[in-house]
């Protein structure tokens, strides 16, 4: 049974979600605010497989909760719910470490599909440490190696110089896109639209924060990047063999 933690201050929505997730065979818990969610995850160390996180919460908001969890090394797959639904909010959520988002009001079937999707990823990560061969319900390992670094898109990890970093779904998708277009410049707009499905008119500079983070994972000197180059006026280029 999978454990889902719902962080939502609107009691009606929290109860409705819990009812549906329990009907799907999950074990659902509710935290009414960010502080109690952080306490359950970081202090009480309650095992949680997926986090459903509302943004507008009393006290600490969803963005803060997500980034504090990541800062504490807790990488529980996180689905953000937002009533505002603006692209800027979505990007802020991804930056804070959310793996997926749904605008309110949401479609129940889509929410359940997204939660199950996150749970599937979680299972791959737990049962198949990078390098092991896949089992029947696991996709073929999707690994890319360059200059002594390994990008494991299935386990969502980066290995470089004996160090490993966990990736969020968003970081993972961005890396995969850059690798697919290796040696070609990729515009910020293309990243927004093709990787994350965000509309035009979003502040494209938001991507820069993601790039900064990815550089920290794969570059020797993130200040003088070799693999993830900036193409002035266009965007970025991934160069596996500089």
């Amino acid at each position, binding site marked *: 049974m999978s454990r889902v933690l719902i962080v939502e201050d609107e009691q009606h929505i929290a109860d409705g979600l819990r009812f549906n997730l329990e009907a799907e065979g999950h074990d659902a818990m509710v935290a009414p605010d960010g502080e109690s969610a952080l306490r359950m995850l970081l202090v009480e160390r309650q095992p949680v497989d997926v986090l459903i996180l509302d943004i507008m919460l009393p006290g600490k908001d969803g963005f803060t909760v997500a980034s504090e969890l990541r800062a504490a090394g807790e990488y529980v797959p996180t689905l953000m719910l937002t*009533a*505002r639904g603006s692209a800027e909010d979505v990007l802020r959520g991804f930056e804070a470490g959310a793996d997926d988002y749904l605008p309110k009001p949401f479609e129940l079937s889509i929410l359940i599909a997204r939660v199950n999707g996150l749970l599937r990823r979680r299972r791959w990560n737990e049962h198949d440490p990078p390098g092991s061969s896949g089992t029947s319900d696991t996709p073929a390992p999707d690994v890319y190696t360059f200059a002594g670094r390994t990008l494991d898109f299935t386990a969502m990890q980066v290995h470089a110089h004996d160090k490993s970093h966990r990736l969020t779904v968003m970081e993972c998708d961005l890396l995969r896109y850059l690798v697919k277009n290796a040696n070609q410049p990729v515009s910020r707009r293309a990243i927004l639209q093709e990787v994350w499905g965000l509309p035009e008119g979003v502040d494209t500079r938001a991507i820069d924060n993601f790039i900064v983070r990815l550089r920290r994972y794969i570059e020797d000197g993130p200040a003088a990047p070799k693999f993830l180059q900036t193409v002035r006026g266009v965007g970025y280029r991934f160069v596996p063999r500089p």
Partner: protein
Amino acid sequence: MTRRQKAIAFFVTLCVLLVAAAVSLNIGWVFINSRSLAPLVLGVISFALIIAGLIVYTVFLVLEIKRNEDHDTFINAVTHELKTPIASMRLYLQTLQSRDIDEQRRQEFYAIMLADADRLHHTVDQVLAAGASGQKAKAVIRSPIDASALARDCVRLALARHHLDAGAITLDTPADGPTVNGDAEQLATVVTNLLDNAVKYSAGNVRVAVSVAVPAPDTVWIRVQDRGMGIAPKQLKRIFKRFYRVQARDLRNIKGTGLGLYIVRSIARAHNGRVFAQSEGLGRGATFTLELPRLATDAVTPAEGQADADASHPEVVK
């Protein structure tokens, strides 16, 4: 520092620098023209005008930036207040549609959806009322109203709506209810908004006292007193502004549109009355007083007679 605070700081700095430049030019002008009176006087007056213009311009700009900010807060709050009940209703409707649910649960879900519909209705009403009170031309349809009965009805409804025990809101009215002249529905909105706030800002420990009093022969007070979170002295007036919401850490979980008290004030003014807030400070509760002109008892009969006459001869009204 938010973007708006930065913008305000920028314009204020710019204003100070320009004023400083104008002042030093002015001093230079005074030195150069110290012997001829006409250019001296004209120059000083022009510089004074430029400086005053700069200051007025900056003040308006800063006020406008702040108004914009209130407006954004309002849009966010209303978006949340509108979307949350819709999201909840959709969630329950889709649940009912896609799952087998026993009768008892079904009834629970209906009750939840009804509560959501009420919440949505309330928000829409608030927004519409605020829009209507922006139009000053709208006349108040007046009739004599027993202030005590009005307060009693509102208290009864508030107790039911917030699921409170009878003791949570007490009522103290004189035996012969003072009469005011006004629109019963609008005045009920005022008392209801004040009561809702009192409950909302009581942090679960609701002890609200409602009283009707006649402090002067021609004045009626309807007061709503709570023992909740209280209001900081400098917020006491601002809370009545449109879209204004007190920004404080422990208030962030209290939802609202920032329209309730604005509506209260608009209605009070349309009735030739006023509303004011008192509080001894944070954590010490607050008292809201609605002050309305009292309808002299001997004036009641003719007014009622007038209303009757209108009712029986509707064509006369035109």
